[in-house]
């Protein structure tokens, strides 16, 4: 089975592991909020798991500080393939408001490959869900590319 097909199967059941890479907590609580009854991300088979080994999708918030960099990298490698990385929030995407800080190693994509960026500071829970929709779309287009190639 090729990777794209696998991803397609995966997309109905995305288990997320959340890393706080030096965020201000706003994005983190909005991620948690997506699980609450109002938004209920479990509808899509999304759930937060407690260990990267179970994860399919890494939700990274925050700017990636120097000190956490190693840990983020380690967690990334602990996630079994295939995996997706979604950066939630502006500061993870671009360092946001913390430009010029000496403590930053970020943004996140300087450390691990990122698939979807969700701007906003913080994004609404629904914006995060929309980010997931984008991730599904990416998976689908990957599959199409693969089908076309073969």
């Amino acid at each position, binding site marked *: 089975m090729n990777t794209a097909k696998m991803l397609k199967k995966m997309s109905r059941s995305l288990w997320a592991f*959340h*890393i*706080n*890479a*030096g*965020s*201000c*907590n*706003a*994005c*983190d*609580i*909005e991620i*948690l*909020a997506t*699980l*609450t*009854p*109002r938004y209920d991300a479990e509808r899509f088979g999304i759930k*937060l*798991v*407690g*260990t*990267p080994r179970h994860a399919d999708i890494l939700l990274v918030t*925050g*700017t990636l*500080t*120097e*000190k*956490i960099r190693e*840990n*983020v990298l380690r*967690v990334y490698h602990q996630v079994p393939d295939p995996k997706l990385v979604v950066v939630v929030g502006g*500061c993870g995407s671009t360092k*946001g*408001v*913390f*430009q*010029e*800080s*000496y*403590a*930053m190693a970020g943004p996140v994509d300087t450390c691990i490959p990122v698939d979807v960026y969700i701007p906003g*500071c*913080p994004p*609404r829970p629904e914006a995060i869900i929309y980010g997931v929709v984008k991730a599904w779309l990416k998976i689908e287009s990957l599959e199409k590319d693969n089908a076309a190639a073969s």
Partner: protein
Amino acid sequence: MSKSTSTFPLSIGPTHPAFKEPVKFSFEVDGEKIVRTDMDFGYTHRGIEHVARERNFIQVIYLLERICGICSVSHPMAYCLAVENAAGIEVPPRAKYVRTIIGELERLHSHLLWTGVAAHEIGFDTLFLHTWDIREKVMDCLELLTGNRVNYAMLTIGGVRRDIAPEHYGILEETLDYYRELYNRTREILLEDLTVQMRCRDIGVLTYEDAVALCAVGPTARASGLPKDVRIDYPCNAYPDIEWLRPASPRDIGKEPRGDVFDRMIVRVLEMKQSVEIVGFCLDNMPDGEIVVESKAIKLINQLKKVKGDGLGRYEAPRGEVAHFDILDEREGPAQIKVKAPTYSNAAAWAVMFNGAEIADIPIIAASIDPCIACADRMTVIKNGCGGLSFTAEELHRLSVEKQKRIKATCGNS
């Protein structure tokens, strides 16, 4: 069934599901019992105080707002108060009331959020989902008033940026009624549930003496029977007008404070009610008038550019006292800011609380002071640090004194 004489190390964090923020605890564990605790902070240190020196007064508000997103009014509030103190700006009364309303709504959401997180930590997901479901109402309200659910961008030096328009009153009142109605029910669910009590009673005890000695602040201090509340002790905004405001205490519902996790929950539940009443009071007594001294940002910056001096701003964040000390030195932005965050004060209490606790208690004890590592992370060792970089208390004090002198010398005022 561990090897009962030997302890083993268990480190939790910095990426651990129990902590929504990166912090690393290293425990020495004997079976399930904790023998020794060590903490490592600094994973979210973002050099904010440093960055602030490169920004102008307006930009700094939004920077400080992102010290922590949970009570994102508190830091800008303390900052604004500090700058206003330094520059001698008098905030219009209406702005004071709006500030209070936003601050209290935020306290409400923050406490609900905390309750949910605490419930999640003890594995009670239904309660977590329920409190967060309730919380959506105040989030909607805040979104309506400020334009965003979190990080409200509401405060500015000399006032607030948005007024509470007449059409908002109805919705606000409705929200308050919603919470008043829910209060008893929610209190029952939180405070009378058997499993919650089993997990929280007599866990993570911080005695009154320890609370005093370790300078605990906020609900953590109040749960230990220490009546400490900046809103009452050093009132700002609309608080001086609210005569009935008292520090919450488990005594209010007839329980002697034991300083355990459960008491912290009681205090927070009581404060939710307090917040609702404060917002109600503010709505009823809202003065008319301007909401900001100077609405033009550029003009404001230019005004502040003329100021030389320093100011202190203190505000009771949901987690306790947050204090900002700002030095203005005829620049476009603050010459120096110093942040004292509530978790910074409370973190020392952790060591006492963890003593003799079980592994299972770690998350709930850690959560019980409602930690906000993001704002407490004022120092870090980056780039292959650790190696030999440690100071004794005396050395640290000497360094502090030297630094203080340096600052005094450069700023030229006391």
